[in-house]
Every structure is written in C-alpha cells, then in structure tokens.
C-alpha cells in the first residue's frame, strides 16, 4: 500500500504547476512509473512540448530537451539518430501534435522512428487560455469557437491515433482514458508497452490519452472526468489501433 505514494525515481519531486484536477500530473506519474519499471531512467531522454507541459523538463528526472511548438518528433529524431541505444520519448498536447506539429509526427511515424510519443488529447489549448484545438468536439465552446465548433467552418475533430495507425512505420498505437481507476491502470499498461515497443526496435509507438482541462472547460475536476466519458469516448473510441507483433 505504501508503494502507491512513493515518488517514482523518474520524477524530480518538484511540485508541478498544473491546475487542480488536471490530468497532466497523472500522466507524468504513469510515464515515470513505466520508466522505473523498465529500469531505463539513466538511459532515457525526454522531449518536452510547448503547451501546459512545457515545464515537463523540471518534473521528469531524466535528461530533457525542450522543443519548439510541434517539433518534438523532429527533435527526438535528431536525438535518436545520435543515440540509437537510448530511449527517447516525446510528451505532446493536441495543439502541439495534431495542429502545428502534424508534419513532424506523421513523418516521424512514417520513418518508423523508434520513439515513444505520449499524446495528451484534452480537446483544447490549455496554455494559451482555452482556444479551439483540432481535437475539440463539434459544438464545443472555446475562446476561438465561441458559438461552438461547427463542422461547416472548423471541420471535424481529428482522430490522430486512427490516422497514425494507417502508417507502415507505426508499430503500436493505443487510445486510453483517465476517467476512472480501471482506465488509469489500462493507460499505465499502454504507456509501458509503448516504451517496450521502442526498446524492441519495432518502430514508432504512441499512446493517446484522453485528458481533462477543468480550467478551460470551465468544469470541476469530477465533472470534467465525466465529460471525457460521456462526450469524448463516443467520438474517440478507446483501444489498440495498431500493434505490430
């Protein structure tokens, strides 16, 4: 029981700046636990995004590289080419990965770069104050879709996992959620798997994590988790989208 509260070695222990109830903190812990479980802390290099997780380099107790907005997969590619025996991961939000960085993620996957990507889909731009993301749901009110996202003018929300699953170089992609304990445990397994796939040299691996942004959704943390379950999961079905065995 005590183990649950132990700080993973792959976290620095520095108190994070995330809002109360924000799932970024949970994901940090799950990633760190996977790194600890696999015994790869001293061999791992992480790439932080631009987004609310921009300070991830202060929280993950591994060597870290802070990338430009959306460019984490390109930065990670450069690192991995120099250090093919290291484990390299990117941690990216939906603005970072599914908007400004679409070229970088698609082509990193297409080259089959042996990288692990942790993709936080919270259906909004958290850091800049709640603008529409490519993953925002139809009808979702944001700072830049004040009348609700309309398919007519903003298009439909983009399903990155399904899209990346069509790519030959992708070895593993799974979508998970954090709305209850059972799903958090599934997310933990998926994250560990995404590192194992890289270590086995199979190709590109990504876990998309349906997350919350209670602050910019204007909801209490529990309400936000319910919103993930009731609104996000029906559009973003959970499960393994591709796995090369």
């Amino acid at each position, binding site marked *: 029981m005590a183990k649950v509260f132990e700080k993973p070695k792959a976290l620095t222990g520095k108190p994070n700046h995330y809002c109360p109830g924000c799932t970024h903190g949970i994901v940090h812990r799950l990633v760190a636990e996977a790194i600890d479980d696999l015994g790869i802390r001293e061999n791992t290099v992480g790439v932080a995004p631009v987004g609310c997780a921009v300070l991830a380099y202060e929280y993950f107790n591994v*060597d870290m*590289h802070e990338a*430009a907005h959306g460019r984490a997969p390109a930065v990670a590619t450069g690192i991995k080419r120099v250090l093919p025996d290291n484990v390299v991961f990117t941690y990216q939000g939906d603005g970072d990965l599914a908007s400004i960085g679409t*070229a970088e993620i698609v082509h990193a996957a297409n080259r089959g770069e042996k990288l692990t990507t942790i993709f936080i889909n919270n259906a909004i731009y958290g850091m800049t104050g709640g603008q529409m993301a490519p993953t925002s749901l139809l009808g979702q009110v944001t700072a830049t879709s004040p009348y609700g996202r309309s398919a007519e003018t903003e298009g439909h929300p983009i399903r990155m996992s399904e899209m990346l699953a069509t790519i030959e170089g992708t070895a593993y992609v799974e979508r998970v959620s954090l709305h209850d304990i059972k799903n958090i445990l599934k997310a933990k397994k998926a994250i560990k798997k995404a590192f194992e796939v890289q270590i086995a040299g199979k190709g590109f691996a990504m876990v998309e994590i349906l997350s919350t942004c209670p602050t910019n959704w204007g909801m209490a943390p529990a309400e936000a988790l319910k919103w993930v379950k009731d609104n996000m999961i029906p559009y973003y079905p959970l499960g393994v989208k591709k796995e090369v065995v």
Partner: protein
Amino acid sequence: MAKVLMKGNEAIAEAAIQAGCRYFFGYPITPQNEIPAYMAKMLPKVGGSFIQAESEVSAINMVYGAAGAGGRVMTSSSSPGISLKQEGISYIAGAELPCLIVNIVRGGPGLGGIQPAQSDYFQAVKGGGHGDYRVVVLAPAGIQEMADLVIDAFDIADRYRNPVMIMGDGMLGQMMEPVEFAKKEVTISEKPWATIGNKEGKPRNIINSLFLDTQDMENHVLKLFEKYKEIEKNEVRVECYNCEDAEIIIAAYGTTARIAKNVIQKAGAQGIKVGLIRPITLWPFPTDVFKKWAEADHVKSFLTVEMSMGQMIEDVRLSIKDTKPVHFYGRTGGMVPLPGDLLKEIIKIRGEK
C-alpha cells in the same frame, strides 16, 4: 593529399565529413542539392546518419535534437529554406548548441529565382529569427576557402556553443576548382552538457531556451552577449587586397569579391588605384579594419559591391561612421555584376570626387 577538382557544394560536404560531421538533416532545394546528395551517399559509410526531412522546419529541429545529444551536425539549404529554418536557428542559439548551417543563397524575395545572389545578408547577420541572438557568418570566396571554413566552422561552433552559418551563392556552389583537404586529426571537444542519459550521481542535463522569469531571461541574454563579445574579439576574419595606396576601396564578399579583384587589376592598368576589403566573417564584421582604412588620407571613398540592392553597405557605413563617401554598385535577382560595368562605375566615382 593531392588536389581534386570539385564543385563548391561537394567540397562543403566532403570537408564536413572530414571535420567529423556525422549527422545531416536537409530538404531538397536548388542550388545546393549536391550537398545532401553527397551526404546521403557518404554518411552511411562512416557510421553517420542522413535524413531527407519532411521540411526545412523539421530538418533544423532534427539538427536541434542531434546537437543537444552531442552530435556534430549540419544542415544546408537555400534562401526560401533558410527562412523556414529561422525558428530552429533561434532555438539553437537560445539553447546554446553548436551546429553548421549552409546557405547557398539565391535571388528573392519569395520563391525568387535559382541564380546566385547575396540578398540574404540581413537575414544572416542581423538575426533572421526572433530574439536577441547572433550567428557567426562565414563567407568564402573560393572552393578551397569553402572547404577550409567548413572545418573551422565546426570548431567555432563547439568553442562558443553557437550556430555558425556559411553563406555561399549558386555560383560558388556550382563552380569547380581544385581543392586540397588537409587531413587534419579531428578532435571534437567533450560535451558534458549533452542529453545522453542521466547517469546516477551526475547532474541532469536539460537543453532549453525557456526563461519565464524576466530577470532570468535578461540574465541569459546578457550571458549570450558576453559570449558574442568574445567572438567579436577573437574571430574576425578579413582579407585586405591592394589597400596600401588605394584611393577607392571596394567592400565585397564571396563571388562579388572575386569579380572585384579582377576589376582592381583592370583599373590599375588604367592608373586608378583601387583596393578591396573582403570580410570573411560577415558577423563578426571587420569594423576595425574598415575604420583603419577610412582614416588613411589616400582613401577617398568606398564602394560596396553586392548581389543585392545593398545590405552590407549599412555595416560599412556604420563601421566608418560615414567619414568618407560610401558608394554602392549592385545587381540583384540572380544577376551577377559584369567586370566592365563595375569598372565603369569606378571611373564614374573617380570623376565625381
């Protein structure tokens, strides 16, 4: 090693490999395509890695990652591609990482043309990307110098943990000249700051250019500028040709400096004494050398010659504080100044005084 006949672009690539560069990330664009092609062929043979990236934006961000991991890394492109690389160059300068960027300049703005130009001078020496930073800019005027400068560029980049740019143009990239590679022992300095994995008991390495606290941000920039001051003190390179008794001094770099040398001889034959100051480092600019010659009584005026509408001329005027007239002659858009036209310009300036 014997001399070999090589295109400028190939000489750049071969010199880079000899300098120990093992990582190249680029995207095709004329007139520099021989560089990535050479690297794609040779790097796998020496245990290196070549990627044709999905864009110049990605290419420079791969450079950013590889440099952070301690690799000796470069990219090359031409003007429109270099514009896309400015994001990454700013991050690399901000995070203080070494790398080489080659710009084989073509005419612009916009898609422009594919013929030689020098119209990216402002972009190269005045920043280009966002923020308070500097890039060391080297401007070779021949193939041998191109090869030599590539090797020096990696060392300068490592010494100061700063991006270094080589500015050529389509003429220098495509023309062939004999070149000799001095088989130097390469010693690449240790990079204790590189992100290679945090071994127990060692400090954690972080590559970063984010400083949310304004005082931290200012301190970081002040530290960068301390470094730039050192670079200005130690790394200025310039060639002075025929300046001792010149009445007119031409300021030109790269291809236009070659043309100027040719014209200086023609002018000499007509009894007009013309000299040349050829900046080899465009930044740091050889300000003191210009100042020195501006103080000489025999020097009546300066003539800046560029393949642009006049960009370096601003640094020439700033250097001599307009104590002497600074004329300009340039062709742009891919047009190369003709020696005969330049000579006419010199004769005209002489008549004006």
